[in-house]
């Protein structure tokens, strides 16, 4: 399956991102070992100049990574015709055991990248590079994620055997099936809906608290992450049912198609942005005590949380609207 152009593009991106991160990590290790902001020596000057390269490399790497997440899903969608019984992206991801882990890793890399870029921005605002060591240690921690993603993706694509009968979303998500995805769709929609609404209200309230008072930043960051997970589970468990107007169609990807007015984008884009911003708020808030950063942190955090709150609100409105506008009534099913 390696000769499919989209697959080649995805592998190319992975290789490029991996090598960019390795290069950056190599530099990061040198920075960690020799960094001395007080010194005016040529080595220190060289290291400071390296930080520009590392930042640029990573900004690009993470934006490529974001695009590859989209491409990965598009590609899964478009390959559904080449597998027996795979009617949509879900079926293609199920072709072998590596599909879902790759997707999850890509999402993880997206969020860690967002947090890293936020830290990088912060670091560039302080005249004594206060976050520099922390930031590069974090980079070293992200590297294995990216490498793992590359390996899993490679395994996923090389182990694709177009003749394997894979389950389409219809059978995969029926409540009898096994596996994570099936368990999610088997969750009782009524309880799921309660949790969904509850966490929505809490996350928005706590976001507003951060935005207005700069209080409870970490709480907001954690809630943002939790809200993200709950939102994904809810989309599989009940939101998608309302969009498809079909009581057993749980697929989280088909809502991205034109047949459903691309409503998936209105759900996913705000959700991802909001969650990434909420997590960044948490990462930034721990640097408030650095004298060179207090000003920046106090200026940036409310701004980020406002945007996060707005996007969370957008997501919940979009989800609420698609449920409200749906012709599906779940009364008999529940």
């Amino acid at each position: 399956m390696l000769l499919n152009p989209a697959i080649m593009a995805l592998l190319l991106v992975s290789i490029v991102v991996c090598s960019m991160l390795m290069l950056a990590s190599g530099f990061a290790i040198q920075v960690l070992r020799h960094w001395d902001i007080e010194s005016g020596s040529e080595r220190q000057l060289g290291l400071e100049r390296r930080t520009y390269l590392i930042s640029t490399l990573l900004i690009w790497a993470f934006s490529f990574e974001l695009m590859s997440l989209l491409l990965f899903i598009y590609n899964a969608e478009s390959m559904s015709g080449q597998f027996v019984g795979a009617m949509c992206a879900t079926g293609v991801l199920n072709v072998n055991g590596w599909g879902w882990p790759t997707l999850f890793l890509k999402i993880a890399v997206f969020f860690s990248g967002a947090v890293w870029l936020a830290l990088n921005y912060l670091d560039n605002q302080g005249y004594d590079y206060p976050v520099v060591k922390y930031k590069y240690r974090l980079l070293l921690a992200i590297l294995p994620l990216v490498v793992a993603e590359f390996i899993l993706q490679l395994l996923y694509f090389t182990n694709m055997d177009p003749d394997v009968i894979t389950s389409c979303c219809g059978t995969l998500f029926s409540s009898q099936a096994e596996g994570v995805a099936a368990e999610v769709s088997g969750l009782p929609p009524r309880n799921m809906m309660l949790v969904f609404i509850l966490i929505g209200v809490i996350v928005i309230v706590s976001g507003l608290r951060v935005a207005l008072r700069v209080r409870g930043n970490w709480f907001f960051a954690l809630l943002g992450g939790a809200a993200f997970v709950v939102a994904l589970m809810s989309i599989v468990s009940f939101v998608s049912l309302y969009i498809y107007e079909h009581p057993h169609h749980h697929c989280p990807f088909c809502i991205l198609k034109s047949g459903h007015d691309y409503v998936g984008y209105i759900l996913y884009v705000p959700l991802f942005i909001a969650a990434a911003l909420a997590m960044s708020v948490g990462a930034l808030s721990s640097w408030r005590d650095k004298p060179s950063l207090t000003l920046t942190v106090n200026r940036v955090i409310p701004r980020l949380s406002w945007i996060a709150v707005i996007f969370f609100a957008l997501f919940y409105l979009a989800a609420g609207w698609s449920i409200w506008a749906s012709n599906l009534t779940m009364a008999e099913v529940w």
Partner: protein
Amino acid sequence: MLIQLTDIKKVFNQGRPNEFWAIQGVSLEFEPNRVSCLKGASGSGKTTLLSMIGCLSRPTSGRIQLGERVISSLPERFLTDVRRHTFGFIFQRFNLISGLSVLENIMLPAYPLGLPYKRLVATALHLLEQFNLLAKADNPVEWLSGGEAQRVAICRALINDPQILIADEPTANLDSKLSYEFMGLIDELRQSGKTILITSHDPEVFDSAVVDRVVEMHDGVVLT
């Protein structure tokens, strides 16, 4: 803005066989609103010293204080910010960028500040008018004569309205008449409230009545 240098040292190629101490412990003070001249043979370290004052490079050790602010330990990222708001530079060979028009050359230092375009153009045209160059605004800089290029370079140095002007061997490529004119312009700038630092080994400059103070350097140390 008072400029204070305390025990400045600068070394190139540290730890290598061709290690070279360009500045070996200089302590100086420059008063605001004066014209000071660093005098000395080439290789005496005057340009290196000037580039450290002008935030173009960082001393290996020592302390540079600009008004209230210590700038000697700032990383390049922040030095640049100080530099573009505080200093204007006039270089030996004018260093205009060929291929760009006079107007574009003058506006260059302001590009990273992101001022509204109309305001920036107005400022630049005002400066050109002041230096009698308005007619040349859209010409490419290659067409300029030496004296005109010099004046364009001054306009460029002034575009961000800096407090301190730094001129490195400004008269090296000018004949004596133009050098004299240049010193006249410097005088005008001083009167408008600028602090001016010049390096030169041209008597036309350091013997000029415009210069308030001459500091002589030799082999990286101050003689007087």
